């Protein structure tokens, strides 16, 4: 989809920002450009949509040399999202998202429909936000609109330059996860620039690690973590690579899927006996259609009247994690909430399984072992 051949950028002052870069990004892949500042990652990205002219070498998009395409035309077919977001403050959210469709001459109704669709995609209610101005939004909302705008004319390729860089850490993690979900649906070919190794590991199908304008290693996050090519990579990845591996695993790959549950309508006493028989002291509770409703512990039941139903004694405000969450987020939640078993929910808040410390430890150990023997 995107192919770089001996791509080199020498600035007027003689700085070699990018030096003979060769690699290819497959269709539908999210490729992260990672490296310390000044490594050439942003320059490389901007040569793809020709915001920075190439000095020598070639960049092919779908087999076509990008210098053979009119620059504006090229850019209208490549989504672009930047760190400062760059939303136009004098235009509404809807008009911002419609920027490229307007440039491409779409009809008014077609544009509006697309803007509404994209707002839905980034989980913002169209009726509430489409006519708002960027200055009326929070940082996270603006970032979402920035992503929606980049997707405006449904381009096959997206370039994202530290798109979540300006967001506070908590919202950033959430936006990253949301964006991954979106990417599962839209399957774009994405170049994602970051200097944050955590972000790279979490987001990337592949990571291009760069240093001094050169590509050092181009691999999957797991290979980069467990099979670093040289000392630079090892140092950049860090000594805590086993911990960083938490980012590579999804909750659904580690959780225990089949698990005893209690139903909200059951008699508490019956459930208590079952728990005692199986030696469990905390049980997830589901409603009649399998949705997660809360958790119940033996002590909850002991301290209530004998005739009570589960729903009367259960604890509703229990923390849960999504099946698609990254493992380190779930682990962090377990540590902060003090839960030894974390209920995992899937679509529609249906209970999907539970996560335990033992399962996490085992999964991590497996990953490190597999990486070391490959």
């Amino acid at each position, binding site marked *: 989809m995107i192919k770089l051949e001996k791509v080199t950028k020498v600035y007027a002052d003689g700085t070699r920002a990018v030096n003979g870069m060769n690699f290819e990004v497959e269709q539908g892949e999210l490729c992260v450009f990672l490296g310390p500042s000044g490594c050439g990652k942003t320059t490389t990205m901007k040569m793809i*949509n020709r*915001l920075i002219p190439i000095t020598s070498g070639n960049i092919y998009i779908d087999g076509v040399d990008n210098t053979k395409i009119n*620059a*504006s*035309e*090229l*850019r*209208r*077919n490549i989504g*672009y999202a*930047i*760190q*400062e*977001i*760059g*939303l*136009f*403050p*004098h*235009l*509404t959210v809807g008009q911002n998202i419609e*920027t*490229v469709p307007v*440039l491409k001459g779409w009809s008014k109704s077609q544009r509006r429909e697309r803007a509404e669709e994209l707002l839905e995609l980034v989980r913002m209610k169209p009726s509430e936000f489409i006519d708002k*101005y*960027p*200055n*009326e*939004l*929070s940082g996270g909302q603006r970032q979402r609109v920035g992503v929606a*705008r980049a997707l*405006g004319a449904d381009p096959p390729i997206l*370039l994202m330059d530290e798109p979540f860089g300006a967001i506070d850490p908590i919202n950033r993690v959430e936006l990253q996860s949301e964006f991954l979900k979106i990417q599962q649906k839209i399957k774009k070919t994405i170049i994602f620039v970051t200097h944050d190794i955590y972000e790279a590991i979490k987001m990337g199908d592949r990571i291009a690690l760069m240093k001094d304008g050169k590509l050092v290693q181009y691999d999957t996050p797991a290979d980069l973590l467990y099979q670093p090519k040289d000392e630079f990579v090892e140092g950049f990845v860090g000594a805590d690579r086993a911990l960083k591996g938490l980012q590579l695993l999804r909750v659904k790959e580690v959780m225990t899927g089949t698990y005893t549950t209690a139903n909200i309508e059951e008699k508490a006493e019956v459930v208590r006996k079952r728990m005692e028989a199986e030696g469990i002291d905390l049980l997830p509770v589901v409603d009649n259609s399998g949705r997660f409703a809360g958790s119940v512990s033996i002590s909850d039941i002991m301290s209530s009247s004998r005739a009570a139903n589960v729903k009367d004694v259960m604890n509703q405000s229990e923390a849960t994690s999504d099946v698609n969450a990254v493992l380190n987020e779930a682990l962090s939640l377990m540590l902060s909430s003090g839960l030894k078993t974390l209920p995992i929910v899937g679509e529609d808040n249906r209970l999907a399984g539970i996560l335990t410390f033992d399962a996490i430890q085992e999964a991590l150990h497996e990953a490190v072992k597999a990486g070391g023997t490959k």
Partner: protein
Amino acid sequence: MLEAWEFIVRRPELLAEWVLAHLWIIFVAVIIAVFLGAFLGIFITGKGREQIADTTLYLAEIVMTIPSLALFGLLMLLLGSIGLKSIGFLPAVIALIVYGQLPILRNTYTAIRAVDPAMVEAGRGMGMTERQILFKIELPLAVPVIMAGIRTSIVLLIGIATIAAFIGASGLGVPIFRGIRNARMDLILIGGISVSVLALLVDGLMSLVERRITPKGLKVGRQ
């Protein structure tokens, strides 16, 4: 003061004539000054024109330091030497256009230069041409500052236009000059107060216009 009032009551049509003539000169001068200033301001923000920009702004500042009386006089002689009408409306309008340039030119230049580069890069990155960047991003964002420049320029010109009477143009300078020559306090007061009131009124009106054409998105904010 009382005499001035009596004069107005006696000859309202004279006052009206001066006010209208005054406004007309300014109107014509401002329209031309705005187009010229905005056009020049946009032109000098172009890539690789930093030197031209510096020179142009410097020249505009020098022009401002020329005493207006001298400029009117100079124009009178200049226009006369090339065979154009050297007194009255034409030299007055030209002088006002020249004087009105600096605030408009400088504000247009500064406002466009001040547009967040991230905004411009976002536009370019999405495939806008340079012209589209100017008209869809830079100018709308620069509107409030450009408008402020126009407003300053107009208020300035309302005052300076009184001197146009010196080279035979009509306007509120006429009663002032006549008052000075004939030691008529009432005429001086009528001219002077009218100019001030006019300046205040036009300034208020322009602030309304300014607020009106500022893009709504620049006025709202999270509370």
